[in-house]
């Protein structure tokens, strides 16, 4: 599907020009971030799984570089080069190539080199409004290119996070569940472990040391651990500090003293993850799930409803949009609202556009603090294929 003939390239560029003019009219400044990026930004932020899909290479100076696997991280970096304060408000748009390794036999809708036309909005503190605007602008771009028949899918990682925050459990359990959220099997295992407290993993720590550690007195615990290492002649070195190792040991102690996660909470989390419903009905489903319990996530819930209302007000056909609680699970840098636009001819696995909120990405790229950020991109080759009937 990569445009290899001049004719297709011209058709793609003509289509992109229409889309870009919609983006620019919506207040986004057109930018062209670098194609070659430092690999570390992507690998440190997104993890090693991305390396398997990214073209990484070493330049003659020994620097590890990559061909950008998306344009969101490069746009964040461009923004930070321009502004000392990453939270400075800005709206950008772009049209350019991205590169992802595809195994032999990958479908044609997944080429290793593809073009994206997209938008990013940084620093907008009215979150629901910025999210709705992003969806509206992307849909306007699709329509300007001529697309009529499509379906909107939405998800909201903020709802899941709020559910975890509100559920009664220690902070470290919350972190573990959030950490495993992206991996359905591991998540289920962790949930089971927490409800049964079956921590059967063998540890290198003698029980007499654990017996001396009191989670209420971390300073003393640190001394105990230091003394333990000392008497055994184990040198403390490496990147993890004494306090980190102690904290981890204390969490083992704390787990053994904590009541297991209630079966109700576990089943609530599991039921939530299974919710798939039309966007409007999903709100009611969620309310039903929470009824009778003492879990209050009204803030995240209101944000969901408000966003839906703003979308409806802007003329988006929310009656036909679908909500999936699990949606976003495979895209680790998203932090809240996520969306995809799907066309019948290409199907759910090859959306023509997608995006969402990623409030922690700017910090992961080097900003001292989180910056509200939301964006979306159109896969222009898929769009062209859908419009010309090549799909």
């Amino acid at each position, binding site marked *: 599907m990569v445009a290899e003939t001049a004719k297709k390239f011209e058709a793609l560029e003509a289509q992109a020009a229409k889309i870009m003019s919609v983006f620019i009219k919506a207040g986004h400044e057109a930018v062209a971030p670098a194609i070659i990026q430092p690999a570390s930004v992507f690998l*440190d932020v997104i*993890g090693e799984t991305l390396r398997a899909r990214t073209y990484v290479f070493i330049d003659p100076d020994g620097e590890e570089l990559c061909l950008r696997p998306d344009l969101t991280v490069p746009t964040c970096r461009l923004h930070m080069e321009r502004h000392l304060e990453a939270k400075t408000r800005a709206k950008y748009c772009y049209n350019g190539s991205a590169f992802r390794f595809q195994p032999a036999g990958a479908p044609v809708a997944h080429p290793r080199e593809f073009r994206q036309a997209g938008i990013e909005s940084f620093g907008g503190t009215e979150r629901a409004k910025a999210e709705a605007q992003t969806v509206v602008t992307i849909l306007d771009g699709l329509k300007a290119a001529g697309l009529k028949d499509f379906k909107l899918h939405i998800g909201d990682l903020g709802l899941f996070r709020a559910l975890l925050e509100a559920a009664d459990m220690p902070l470290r359990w919350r*972190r*573990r569940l959030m950490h495993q959220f992206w991996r359905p099997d591991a998540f289920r295992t962790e949930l089971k472990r927490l409800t049964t407290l079956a921590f059967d993993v063998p540890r290198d720590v003698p029980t007499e040391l654990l017996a001396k550690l009191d989670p209420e007195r971390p300073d003393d615990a640190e001394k105990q651990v230091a003394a333990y290492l000392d008497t055994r002649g184990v040198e403390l070195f*490496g990147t*993890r500090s004494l306090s980190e190792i102690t904290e981890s*040991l204390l969490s083992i102690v704390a787990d053994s003293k904590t009541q297991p996660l209630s079966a109700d909470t576990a089943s609530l989390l599991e039921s939530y993850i299974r919710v798939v419903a039309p966007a409007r009905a999903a709100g009611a489903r969620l309310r039903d799930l929470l009824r009778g319990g003492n879990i209050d996530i009204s803030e995240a819930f209101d944000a969901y409803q408000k966003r839906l209302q703003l979308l409806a007000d802007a003329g988006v056909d929310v009656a036909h949009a679908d909500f999936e609680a699990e949606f976003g699970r495979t895209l680790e840098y998203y932090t809240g609202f996520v969306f995809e636009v799907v066309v019948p001819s290409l199907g759910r696995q090859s959306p023509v556009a997608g995006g969402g909120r990623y409030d922690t990405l700017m910090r992961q790229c080097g900003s001292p603090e989180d910056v509200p950020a939301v964006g979306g991109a159109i896969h222009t080759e898929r769009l062209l294929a859908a419009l010309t009937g090549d799909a």
Partner: protein
Amino acid sequence: MSSAESLILAVPSKGRLMEQTIETFAAAGLNVRKVGNARGYRGEVEGVPNVDVAFISASEIARYLKTGRAHIGITGEDLVREQMTDWETRVSMLKPLGFGHADVVVAVPDCWIDVRMMADLDEISGAFRVRHGRWFRVATKYINLTRRFLSSRGLTDFRIIESLGATEGTPAAGTADFIVDITSTGATLKANGLKILDDGLILKSEANLIASRMAKWTPRVREAENIILQRLGV
């Protein structure tokens, strides 16, 4: 270096691996010797026609077998698995040779007393990220083996740092948090204050006699191969 009708036999060019290869062949009545000057890189097998011996490094041998530049070679299974993601389609392992033993293992600092299993690493990786603002860094020269093994154990959030030497020193230097490296007795790891995780054995490797499926196998080459394999008892 050879006529198109000769079998190319790739033999390690130095160290114990070379000595033991030559001993093993000699014990089977195959005398491998260098031709030309003693430092040369070419050789022959006495009394077996149509064989050209190429003395090259063990990792180069894996590459030769991968592309079919050599028909048969002797190298470590670790190198084959690391350098070929599709090794089963490219080579066949004919025989483990009983020397060149080395384990590819995951090792962490001794002072990580809270970590003994792979699952423990996953357990602490979230807290590590919160504190350090990045994922774990793993130093290794076995990039592919490491990535595949860690992913198969559910550990997906890490960064591989390619290390071409003295991998065992990287945790102390702070350039990596833990390592994946080769060990035969464990002494080097121990000297560097590192311990192997209980379920951290990625591969038990030894030197293997390996044939390339990518090489050009003419009847004459096949014939030379048969003589060698027969003597070696394959």
